């Protein structure tokens, strides 16, 4: 299975490549725009998507800082942080807006927010999540289920 890993670092890609070398091909994209382009080029069975992107430049962040700042009394710093902290969902929305129905596995813990997750699934399926601390084998299993399902 060829999986696109969209993350601002390389930890997931490195770990998954090391622990799940068989049956998987892990390809990294370092930002939302990169990920969109990669998915657009095709060939991926699924996307493994990180949520937090705090190591990419501002122009590589999806979402608008100025309009987001209104949520924070006009504070652009908080707005940027909001975009960074939830960048995974901005990428997911952009993928769906671009018409890509590729299964996406989010690295984030929605266990405590079932209502929110339900709405996101309603909007962006096929999508699933695993908490950040998921082990490589959990990820493999979840991806298998997501792609197979």
């Amino acid at each position, binding site marked *: 299975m060829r999986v696109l890993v969209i993350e601002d670092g390389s*930890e997931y890609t490195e*770990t998954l490549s090391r*622990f799940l070398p068989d049956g998987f091909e892990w390809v990294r994209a370092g930002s939302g725009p990169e990920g969109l382009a990669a998915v657009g080029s095709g060939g991926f069975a699924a996307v493994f998507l990180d949520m937090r992107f705090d190591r990419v430049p501002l122009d590589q962040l999806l979402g608008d800082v100025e309009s987001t700042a209104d949520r924070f009394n006009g504070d652009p710093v*908080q707005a940027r942080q909001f975009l960074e902290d939830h960048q995974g969902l901005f990428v997911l929305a952009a993928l769906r807006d671009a018409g890509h129905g590729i299964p996406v596995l989010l690295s984030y813990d929605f266990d405590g927010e079932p209502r929110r997750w339900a709405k996101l699934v309603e909007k962006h399926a096929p999508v699933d999540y695993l908490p*950040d*601390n*998921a082990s490589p084998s959990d990820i493999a299993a979840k991806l298998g289920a997501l792609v197979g399902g």
Partner: protein
Amino acid sequence: MSALWLALLIGTARGEPGDGLPALARSFFTDAVQRQGNGDWRGAALRFQKVVDLEPAYTPAWCRLGDVLAEDGRTTAALEAWEGAPYDPDCVEAAGRAELELARYDEALAHFERLSRLTSADPRVELLIGLAVLGRGDVDGAIAAVDRFLTRGSEPSADLPDLVEAIAAQLQSEPERALTLVDDAIRQQSDLAERLSAVREAFVVEVRAIEMMGAAPVALDAPQRRRLEQARRAFAEGRMDAARPLLESLRDEVTRSPEVWAALADVREAEGDIAGAEYALLLARALAPQRSDVHARLGQLLATHFGGRFDREALQAFERALEGNPDADLEWCRSELARRVGNFELMKRALANHLALAEGPPRRGMCTLPTDPAVLARDLERTRATPPVIPPVDPPEGVDPEAWLAVHRAQVHLDNDDDALALSELDAALTSQPDLVKGLNLKGHLLTKGGDRAGAVAAYERSLEVDPDQGNVMAALSELLRALGRNDEALAMRDRAAAEGSPVARFLLAQEAARANHWWEARDRLDGYFEVASSGALYAEATVLRDELEWRIRGFWGAVALTVLAIVFLPLVWMWRRRAGSPLSRLLERSPRSFREVARIVSSLRHEVLKHNVSALPGVADALEDGDPEPAMWAAERLYGKSGAIARFRRYIGELEELGRANQVALNLRHRDLVFGPLLAAMDRLAGQERRLAAGTARPADLRAISDALNQEGFRALGRLLDGVCVVQLEPSVFEAALADVLAEPAFRGTARPDWSLEVPDGLAVRVFRGDLHDILVNLLRNALEASIEAGEDRLGVRLDLEEDDITGLERVEIRVADDAPRRISTAMIRGRYIERGLGLAVDLTSRAGGSIHVEDEPGFSKAVVVRLPLAEGGST
């Protein structure tokens, strides 16, 4: 007395030759004197005879005639010549001395008695009278004459030593009396000390020897020693009522114990019974004449309690105390007493000795008179004790008294370091009494001192053959045997000595045990020593050793007690440490503003440490089970080292603790915090896996367990912590409390509660700190209330709504605070530099909580100030 001496004496006493004579007689006299000066006795005699023939009343010629006749050996003729001038003192003295030479003592005495009359009882004549009466065999008369001279005489006299020597020669059987006479003479004429030293020393030895023979002190047994110690302690503590009965009962039991008498003297003196104290000391001295402390105490008593009347006696006592016992304080007393009796030469010597010995100022009050006149007056009236009479002690049965005395003389010589004389006396004694035990023991001691160990061993062994029960002799023999390399015999002998009650042996054994750190054994042995000794050379050393042992033993038990306490208390300390300090929640309660920093650190822990590092552990475990160690080694590189995940984890924990300290909260995350406790323990376990993980030999089960603790439970717990600390349930009470606080403010005193509409749906919670939310609400309500009052309105409305972000799905709770005041502010005005209308705090706090604040229309009201805060979905479930 020699003729030459007489001539010289007479020659120097004559006046200018021939004064007042007619010319012829003077011519003969002058010629005669010249011949006398040239030693021409016969020529001189012929011419002096001519003078007396011509001028029979000229007495100097008679005297000189007698002188030259005496020089010429014609004593009878000389006497006749001197008698020719019966009223000339010189002639009478010369005649008396000539009679002495001829041993015609009655005649001599008659001359000297006349001379005494002629010289108005010149004290020096007393000495001549003394010589005459001694010649008649009247020793007492001679001594009385010396006393008269010493009492009245101020000029030295060459006759004094002659007479003293002569009397002393007659007093061989009364050495003490002779010694007193000699000492009195020396005191009067200090230049006689050298001349009379030999005589004096002989009497000293004799007197001491006799003293020793008569002393025969009786030693205390062990229970008696204990009672004596008890009494001494009571005395030292000032409990005379306890000390006295003990000592008196001991005195009744052991009347010849110098120690008991000396201790009793202390008590009596302390109680003011000075005569009783003196009596006790005199007895102690008689029983133990060699004890310098007893002499010193007697000197002290006499020097301080009798107004100076017996200073000479006190001085003698101090001098006796100083024999063989150099002591700065005693020398000081000697100088003080010498000053008081007017002997400044002695004072000078004593002071020099004191200065050579002293390490500090002299002990005051030891020998000074009281300064209180009343006390002094009473002391001058004080009566002396009647000297005690001690029953004489005969020599041991079968021992020749002379040999016995010789042995004691030897002892005195030994005390005086005159070993040769001591040995000579001993040899004399042992020649007549070869089995005299005391003599053999002394000889053993002397030979030991002189380095003749073999001879000493022989003497001691012989002594033990005669009397096998001598512990101290065994002890001395043991030392000798050891010095001779006969160690086994030495040890056996020392054990025998200790068993026999030798204080020396018992002390040495105690000392040896102490050196080997066998403290209890040493103490037991020392107890054995104190059972048989209450004074002596080793006593002070033994006392020091006992104190040292007690200290060590107490120290040991102290250490044991401390150890026991430590064993008991260490778990308590451990428990206390576990219980001391606070969990993280305490920090958040006490310092709500620390929440953001806590959140940052906790978030970093989750994302930096746990997410990308520990999450790999199950994969490592799988690989290890598949026989692939490489992932384990890779994980080890990420986990360990200075920049590894574990080190970062610990740095973050350190940051939390530092944050606690900055807010006066001592965190105890390891033992008191339900979230961090298990995390820290699991991280410690992971740290413990370093070597095995790096070597690829870690146990997969261990790694999975650690992963579960850290990455599953720990990770979620941290998430819950983040959620929990900043989630507030929105209930009506939250808003009511804020309004109540506003109405309680001074600005609103007397203001009626506004018409208040509150719409709060169930189950909403916001992600904001409780205190912040309260401040925000108070700020909004105050502002709305002020505006309403200004506008003459009295209505407020609070309504809650939800707003959802389209992309993230995140919801925010709208808190709409509506009023009827004219809309004079806008969203822009309450943000940034336009902050006004008193909403600055609300703006700041909502921003910090990731929220926003707006001014918006509100149906039914003029406007609403709307605060949006993130919904905490978990908080509603």
